[in-house]
């Protein structure tokens, strides 16, 4: 518990600050502070409280069930283009806010996924996951989604190559938080 506070001290400090600001807004009837809380923070926070625990439980389950050897052959170093496509598919079938991808990459890394596939996962998850595409089509049309997907795919491929090069010889690792 003590360790937890130390590791998260900056975040906890900021949370206290925000909470104090919100409390003051209610005490002194400050419109902006109240609105930030009720019309922005609550709806955003609701998404987090719904998605994240479920996602983390799924990560925990995958961790206990999927063996390292299996992951290594499928998406590890030397898994080639097939591994790349597989990781993109995996990313597309996920949901959640962009930052939800980081904990998943920790698991993938621990199980032996290659550096390139870690960054490919980040790229694909943030740009072309299916729930996002469905949402996009309803608001901006399927043509927009199609063009964006076709342009983005090669770009995230190139980016993952660049990242792979950038971390080479630098002992890249995904830490457990």
């Amino acid at each position: 518990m003590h360790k937890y506070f130390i590791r998260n001290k900056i975040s906890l400090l900021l949370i206290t600050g925000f909470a104090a600001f919100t409390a003051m807004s209610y005490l002194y009837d400050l419109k902006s502070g109240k609105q930030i809380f009720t019309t922005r923070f609550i709806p955003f926070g609701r998404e987090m409280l719904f998605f994240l625990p479920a996602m983390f439980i799924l990560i925990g389950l995958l961790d206990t069930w999927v063996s390292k050897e299996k992951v290594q052959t499928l998406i590890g170093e030397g898994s080639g283009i097939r591994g790349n496509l597989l990781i993109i598919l995996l990313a597309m079938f996920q949901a959640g806010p962009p930052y939800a991808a980081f904990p998943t990459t920790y698991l993938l890394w621990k199980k032996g996924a290659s550096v390139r596939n870690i960054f490919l996962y980040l790229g694909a998850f943030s740009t072309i996951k299916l729930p996002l595409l469905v949402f996009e089509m309803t608001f901006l049309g399927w043509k927009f989604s199609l063009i964006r997907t076709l342009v983005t795919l090669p770009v995230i491929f190139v980016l993952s190559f660049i990242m792979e090069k950038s971390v080479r010889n630098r002992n890249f690792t995904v830490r457990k938080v």
Partner: protein
Amino acid sequence: MIVLIVTFLSVVVSYLVDKKKTIAGIQAGLRLFLQVLPSVFVLIWVTSTLIYLLPAGVIAHYLGREAGLTGYLLAALLGAISLIPSFIAYPLAGVLLKYGVSIQVIAMFLSTLFMVGVPSIQLEARFYGWRTAIVRNVVYLAGAIIAGTFIALII
């Protein structure tokens, strides 16, 4: 919604096959969740404040048709520094369209919005270290601007 169903089914199936493993898995997952919870909390609060300070009308004014190249650059910058969940980003994009912002500028905004996350960089750094987190955001920003430009040209 789908995530909740998938998780629920996975837990049920996993529990039926191996009770011990399932409980260990859920515990490990929730422990990880608790570790990132404070960072995520801060992230949401910062985003909430940012969105409040920059309502759609104001954004549209700076990204409007007359804005030209500056509009694109602003859109890229705005996308990079904000972290909006897609269920807010797309309705926002719809509103911006109505205010007269071009679909090209919106493409640029969405591109950097998805690929770069300045507000989440502190969370990212805890997983990959500061150097990699910063390099990734810079590299992906360049990629997002290139992708955004191509999307804008094709549409």
